[in-house]
């Protein structure tokens, strides 16, 4: 089952994982990724604003999850992505994948993150404590990491 949430509210990672485990005895492994707001740049970060494209965001995450489910034998996929203003250390994203086998869970989780990073319509803007701002630039390495999955086809 695929569960997608795009929300301003924080999420409870433990609860998300319990949903993936819930009363099932065929789950062999669950691979999870969580991303947090980092404050490691030159200028101290005040907060980060996450802009998104309402409607398309949910559809894009759904499509990414469906591609993963076609590619690997998965049981459940849960994706939560936050929007709005987030503080350093705040959780941004949760991707959890359960499968009978750990290899499928690991691959699918990493695929979803790589695909999300290059396809889901989110944009980060950093607001520094000195009052200046900066849109986060997309990384070439994210494009390259996502391209690996095409080569493996």
């Amino acid at each position, binding site marked *: 089952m695929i569960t997608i949430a795009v929300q301003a509210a924080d999420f409870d990672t433990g609860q998300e994982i319990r949903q993936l485990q819930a009363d099932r005895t065929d789950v062999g492994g669950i691979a999870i990724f969580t991303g947090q707001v980092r404050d490691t740049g030159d200028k101290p970060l005040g907060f980060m604003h996450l802009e*998104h*494209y309402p409607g398309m965001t949910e559809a894009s995450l759904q499509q990414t999850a469906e591609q993963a489910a076609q590619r690997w034998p998965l049981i459940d996929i849960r994706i939560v992505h936050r929007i709005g203003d987030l503080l350093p250390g705040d959780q941004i994203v949760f991707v959890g994948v359960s499968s009978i086998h750990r290899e499928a869970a690991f691959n699918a989780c990493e695929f979803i993150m790589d695909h999300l990073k290059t396809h889901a319509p*989110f944009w980060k803007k950093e607001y520094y404590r000195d009052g200046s701002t900066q849109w986060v630039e997309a990384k070439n390495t994210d494009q390259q990491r996502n391209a690996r999955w095409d080569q493996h086809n």
Partner: protein
Amino acid sequence: MKILFFGNLREQLGTGEIELPLAPGTNNIAELLEALKQRGSEWQQALSAGSLLCAVNQTMATRDTLLEDSDEVALFPPVTGG
């Protein structure tokens, strides 16, 4: 036709959304971009980035994706979520 702008592009253009009738000769995204560039120097500059992404009806599209007047088009810089 509804055209949405996001992220840095929205700020550069000073607007997040415009309504526009689909003009004759504007059949795809590439031609729409050329038409929008005529709106002024900010538009010319902001829409020239080769890295610009586009979506038609909330699905990722390319420069040669064909357009209809009822479409919702979105233009935006490379995404940075996750």
